[in-house]
């Protein structure tokens, strides 16, 4: 399956297992602009997979309500670049719901999915990586997969997780990345980074599309410079697995973090300052 098919498979599993699960967002009914929801409306009915008008703040606010009332809400924001009208809802409402109601209410059933990252021709408003903005907010979880196999497991974990989650899907990989993915549901734990390749000289950390870039870099470094790189996919941005990263840096003594988002205040700054 490629990435969008693995997402569809995950959503299919989620809707099959959880009768309260609903998917909504702009254009999801016909399958979505990236075909992540193809076939789901026919299979589960139009009361479970439905379109919303063009209103991100409304979509997320509505999703919070659905989640608080007890149903599982899977909201799609058409591009991560459009998530900003919903920023207030996510940061002020979703993230703090459980805390401010003293655990009486929560919107843990909410998962927000959005295509993320550069795609070559996206320019200002179809390429953004806003994970750093949300990382500053306690109460939510942010997850970014690097491949179809990872995406399905991580998405199912997000949907089942009892906290509001934001799941960013690297849009450039939707069709480009293909892997063998099991059809049955399976989970990949959140807040656990994955060491893809062990090494001894330097630790390379990335997430999403960049993981593939640093893998290539590690191979080139080994071949041309004889440098042994430890490659780590962070997977969950918030709460992030500082233990794995720090353990690795203690071993290698050097850390390089690569991400698509702007440098200043990007998530690499959080990782590097913690490691220091």
């Amino acid at each position, binding site marked *: 399956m490629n990435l969008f098919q693995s997402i569809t498979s995950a959503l299919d599993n989620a809707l099959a297992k959880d009768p309260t699960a609903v998917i909504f967002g*702009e*254009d999801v009914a*016909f399958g979505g602009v990236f075909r992540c929801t193809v076939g789901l409306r026919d299979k589960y009915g139009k009361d479970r997979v439905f379109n919303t*008008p*063009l209103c991100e703040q409304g979509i997320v606010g509505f999703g919070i309500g659905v989640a608080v009332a007890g149903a599982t809400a899977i909201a799609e924001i058409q591009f991560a670049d459009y998530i900003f009208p919903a920023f207030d809802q996510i940061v002020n409402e979703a993230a703090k719901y459980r805390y401010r109601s003293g655990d009486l209410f929560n919107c843990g059933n909410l998962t927000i999915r959005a295509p993320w990252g550069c795609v070559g021709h996206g*320019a200002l*408003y179809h390429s953004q990586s806003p994970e750093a903005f949300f990382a500053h907010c306690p109460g939510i979880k942010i997850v970014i997969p690097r491949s179809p196999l990872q995406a399905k497991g991580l998405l199912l974990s997000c949907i089942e997780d009892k906290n509001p989650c934001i799941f960013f899907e690297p849009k450039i990989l939707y069709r480009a990345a293909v892997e063998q993915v099991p059809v049955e549901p399976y989970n990949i734990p959140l807040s656990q980074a994955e060491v893809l390749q062990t090494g001894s000289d330097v630790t390379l950390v990335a997430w999403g599309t960049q993981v593939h870039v640093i893998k290539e870099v590690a191979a080139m470094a080994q071949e041309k410079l004889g440098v042994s790189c430890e490659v780590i996919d962070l997977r969950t941005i918030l709460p992030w697995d500082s233990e794995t990263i720090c353990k690795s840096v203690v071993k290698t003594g050097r850390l390089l973090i690569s991400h698509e988002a702007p440098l200043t205040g990007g998530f690499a700054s959080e990782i590097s300052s913690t490691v220091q």
Partner: protein
Amino acid sequence: ASRVMVASRNYADFASEATFELKKCDLHRLEEGPSTTAVMTREEGLHYYKTMQTIRRMELKSDQLYKQKIIRGFCHLYDGQEACCVGLEVAIKPTDHVITAYRAHGFTYARGVPVREILAELTGRKGGCAKGKGGSMHMYTKNFYGGNGIVGAQVPLGAGIALACKYFGKNEICLTLYGDGAANQGQIFETYNMAALWKLPCIFICENNRYGMGTSVERAAASTDYYKRGDFIPGLRVDGMDVLCVREATKFAAEHCRAGKGPILMELQTYRYHGHSMSDPGISYRTREEIQEVRSKSDPITLLKDRMVNNNLASIEELKEIDVAVRKEIEEAAQFATTDPEPPLEELGNHIYFNEPPFEVRGPNQWIRYKSVS
């Protein structure tokens, strides 16, 4: 003025002007609407025709260049909706202000940017109107504020421009455009409230082309009477395929604003032949028959042509000559757009901030620096 290449023709053959009956506009909270008759002079007709035809050919040329991969990125074409931007432009003054969303090539031209600069901007060359750094969705010129990518975000901006107009007291107004999809965004309603509260000279214009990307208006809006959505703001629904209807309605709305009566809302019922953008074939959510029907019955350029010929304001040959001149202009502009050099790499970091001393911007890694000058 129209630049018609007519060599030896007897102008006395043509009428100097004609009067036309227009469709009545639906009104909301208005006692009377714009005039249902309009007078169009020969010069005006030729001007509207040339402008609309230029926009039409420019958009088709962009389509061609996009398919040849000379234009990259996103491209949202305006063909079918030409009567809207032309009708609006001729009813306001160059000192008035216009702001719209991303389907902006027609407005950019109407507001005075030459075709070559528009096409060069699409191809990302330094001769483009935004120096090649904006592209399709970010074109600007004097009193035209773009060209905005985020749907609905330009509407509060438009109200702000209107406030500045009121504040400076120069009797200017602001035309704030958005589409039927954007009409469901929350910030639009926040803007309606502010504009009405402070009586801002703002004409809100909803270009209803029946589809918000791939979603038809019936499936997106609880009320498709977009001209009534302003609730406490008076509104009118206008036939957006008839350039004269748009012109008269805009004149009416402009007078309303200039008289200090506050904002007014116009819904232009129009249609786009292309899909939402160049990556959308435009037929998965509507039928080819529907597109064909609009093209044959309501095409704005054909409507104008028929009116002019039937009322002896111009001859078919004359209009054909205009077509030829327009085609030539577009070809030359496309030539320029494909051969002009791209902006130099030194300019990549410019204009991030407004600053006197130039500063350095980090590139994709710590060791690449760009100088930022403004």
